[in-house]
């Protein structure tokens, strides 16, 4: 019984460790077939096709470049675009487009795009394009889905401290009847994850002996090799 309790404690600790951590600085990954400049330093696609991005990174593209955010939304920057990558308080990506344009595919949730100093928030599943015209104002075109915000709100390169408090829940903010979109890393999600993992660990422990003590148990992950395709 003692070892079961010990391992239960370890399971809870592991669940806490395995829970989503918002401390990771990576807000997405950018890929292109041509060099991308990140914070003034050019990256070469011959060195690596994809580069992780941190909040406050300034990127400049020479060819179309694909940004996959940490929450797996997809943004395709046009060639010769410039943007500042940020992260809102809920962990979602905040993109400030300085030059050029971007095609968005909000696969998993809202994306915060500030272009022409106006805020656009495509809702989950929305696809479309935002582009700066000659005068520096934004032109939007929606292929599917809806905008939660469509340029009615002013915005700036960095995420203001009270950014989320002014947004509707559908945009990951705190205004509105219910959260119809959003997600990301917040305290509630983390708590649910920890509780679920701990519960699962407990159920597992008390239904079967630990694998480490069982004969014929194998934790080795199946390697990916051609023969196992």
């Amino acid at each position: 019984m003692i070892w079961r309790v010990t391992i239960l404690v370890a399971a809870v600790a592991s669940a806490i460790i395995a829970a989503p951590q918002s401390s990771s600085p990576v807000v997405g990954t950018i890929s292109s077939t041509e060099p991308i400049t990140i914070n003034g330093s050019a990256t070469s696609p011959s060195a690596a096709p994809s580069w992780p991005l941190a909040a406050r990174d300034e990127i400049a593209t020479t060819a179309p470049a694909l940004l996959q955010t940490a929450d797996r939304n997809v943004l395709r920057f046009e060639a010769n675009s410039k943007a500042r990558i940020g992260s809102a308080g809920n962990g979602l990506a905040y993109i400030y487009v300085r030059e050029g344009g971007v095609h968005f595919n909000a696969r998993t949730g809202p994306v915060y795009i500030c272009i022409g100093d106006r805020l656009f928030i495509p809702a989950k599943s929305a696809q479309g394009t935002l582009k700066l015209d000659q005068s520096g104002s934004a032109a939007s075109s929606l292929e599917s889905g809806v905008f939660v915000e469509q340029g009615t709100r002013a915005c700036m390169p960095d995420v203001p401290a009270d950014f989320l408090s002014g947004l509707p829940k559908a945009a990951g903010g705190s205004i509105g009847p219910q959260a119809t979109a959003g997600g990301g890393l917040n305290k509630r999600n983390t708590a649910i994850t920890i509780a679920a993992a701990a519960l699962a660990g407990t159920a597992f422990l008390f239904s079967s002996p630990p694998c480490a003590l069982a004969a014929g148990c194998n934790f080795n992950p199946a390697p990916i090799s051609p023969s196992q395709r």
Partner: protein
Amino acid sequence: MTELASRLPALYGLALAGCMGWSWLSSGSVSPPAPQTIANHAYRELWSDHPEGRQSAIEMFQQSLAMDPAFPFRWSDLGDALAAAGRTDSARYCFRRSLELAPNSPQIAMRAVNFDLGEGELGPALQLGAVVLRITPDYDQMVFNSWLRLGGDMNGILQAGIGGNTRAAEAFFRFLIASTATGHSATGQSEESRLFQTWNWMEGRSSVTRALATAWTVWLESRHHDGDAFLVWKRYVARDSGYGAGNWIDNSGFEYEPAGQGFGWRLQPCPGVKSALDPAVAHSGHSSLRLEFDGSENLDFHHIAQSVWLAPGRYRLTAWMRTANLSTDQGVALTLFGVSTPALVSARDWSRVSADVTVRINPSLGEVRIVRAPSWRFDGKLRGVVWIDDVELRRID
């Protein structure tokens, strides 16, 4: 039967042409697609917007890997696709496999660095980045930039990333200096504190070179850290052993080429004057500074100088000068804080000139400058040669 047999070659030919046509239409080639061709298709899928793109890319990368399992890039390609799909453990396995196959490939290591940084695994990212730096200087900027943006604190970067690699240490320090010009501060730490921390770390490991110290002095001067700049120059760059102790002029005998920056002699070009070291004439040592005026200009000359960092007190500025056929009434002198030595004119053998200077502000950045004021005479255009040697600035109180 015989008729069919006679037509078989034609049928075979048609079938072969059909197969070749189908292959050409599907892959752009009549031969079976090479692994790289499949990988290129896979990247197009991976970077497409459609939802099945990633899974399709993974399958194609697996196919290309099956055809070429010993090629490390196939493993990295699959690793990238798996990472994009959130299959982190499988991606990690692929990157480790690629590293096993090509432990000395900077590209393979760089891709693994990016994966580790993306997953927040800073330790492996620093270790693999260190491998890249050991192999080639070509990726220095990419490694440093990634580390600074995503690699955590400076101490970890210096200890685990740079380590004992003195070439990388110098390159990293220069990268930091250059990045201050772009204004990008990736770590949240101030640019200055990053530089000072790195400099102190390098000093502690005795990996400071004269060239690096010169660059650091120039940067410190540009940020008005004149006292620090002087100390760095004195310790690592100064040519004269007594610099900053008995004599506040470096390279006082013009025995070395002027440094052109920091606390060394700076020679700016000036029309009508040729200035250079003269190894044939010297008051002491092996050379002196020669200024040859060609008579084309009535010069306001102040183009040769050296910065000095002085504590309050009284100083004596001295120099040995020699002139040959120097025309006009305005000769060549040395100045500091508005005080000038006598100006020599016409033809004089080696003569000692001096001026006493009082520094009242604590401490002060000044400039010892070689000057010639314009003449008011009609024939004021300066012609002739001046040699200067053994310039000294010593305390006299």
